[in-house]
């Protein structure tokens, strides 16, 4: 008898149309169809969703939190990207 653990899937739920899918949790399943069925039974028992995505956890490429300072550093010094960087003189409207 094989003692193989079913792969882990991450579950994303769109709660209603117009919203993006949001991570809800994870489940184990032997294949993709079972992953969808299990995700439905586990995460949408009270009509929490109109659409489900499931993706094998080992297919997700994630940034490393230990390196997050360096990884996101390029965005840190470009304060001119924010509208608050600019002084708007008094009397100028609709800007």
């Amino acid at each position: 008898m094989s003692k193989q653990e079913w792969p882990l899937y991450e579950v994303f739920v769109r709660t209603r149309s117009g919203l993006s899918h949001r991570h809800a949790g994870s489940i184990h399943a032997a294949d993709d169809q079972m992953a969808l069925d299990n995700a439905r039974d586990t995460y949408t028992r009270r009509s929490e969703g109109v659409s489900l995505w499931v993706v094998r956890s080992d297919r997700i490429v994630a940034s490393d939190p230990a390196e997050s300072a360096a990884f996101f550093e390029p965005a840190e010094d470009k304060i001119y990207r924010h509208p608050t960087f600019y002084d708007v003189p008094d009397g100028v409207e609709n800007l």
Partner: protein
Amino acid sequence: MYTQGLDQKESAGKRPVDAVEAAEQLQAFQARIDAEEKIEAKDWMPEAYRRTLIRQISQHAHSEIIGMQPEGNWLTRAPSLKRKAILLAKVQDEAGHGLYLYSAAETLGVSRDQMVADLLSGKAKYSSIFNYPTVSWADIGAIGWLVDGAAIMNQIPLCRCSYGPYARAMVRVCKEESFHQRQGFDIMLELSRGSPRQKAMAQDALNRWWWPSLMMFGPNDSESKHSAQSMAWKIKRFSNDELRQKFVDVTVPQADFLGLRMPDEALRFDADAGHYRFGEIDWQELFDVIAGNGPCNKQRLEKRQQAHDDGAWVREAAQAYANKAAAAAA
């Protein structure tokens, strides 16, 4: 996200090499906790924090799974189709809660199979309350009202727990838990407004479930060995005694409404403090149940083992089908 597979090796490679660095890392970690930042799966964390969470979350998950048994006992004997449908939905919720929690524990690097094996071998614990029998239909009411009520007291602060995946799982659990408590109270209400025999059934269930429900909060603060560190890590927000007192304060008036009496001669309202004072808990009973000598410990584990064994062919068939489909697609 819950991708725990990759982070273990990485963080192992980044272990601090000397004591100074280790102390700095611990300090930075505590500072994040103190600032109410959530810790996420791949973040650095002290090994003791990881182990504490694995123990607590897996025990919590096991409790949900074993907790299906006492209620499942009445599924085929529910007094009406309505009650049966409600109870089925509740028991299915308990399975769902177990699954949310197992997946939260898995983010810490423990496998599902390992947790299941620890439950079946008796190495891992689950809540003492599920080792009591459900001998009448009124017990289903008492469980929903009292056991789920006590669980809610424990679980609401856990929604703010410092570990993100656990906190998020608890938000989901708590949303569903109030249905559980209300359906239990509803059963008690119907029985206590029914015939004298029905009311006696409700009183009998309350007599048997009240004290074990108080024990669910764990030992007194002075005896609780994990409490201080868990508070410092903001895994726990309130002490066992604080939560127990809160539970008593909200539940006694509900019993009054039902016209039922708490099985506690010492129970009285302390008007100055605004709290109900209650009698001494039989701690020996709690320790006996935890040690494996409760009325149903053996039965609960045997039944779980049997369900696991009976499901083996299903797991194997699903795996064989997946392998065959993958081979055909290749």
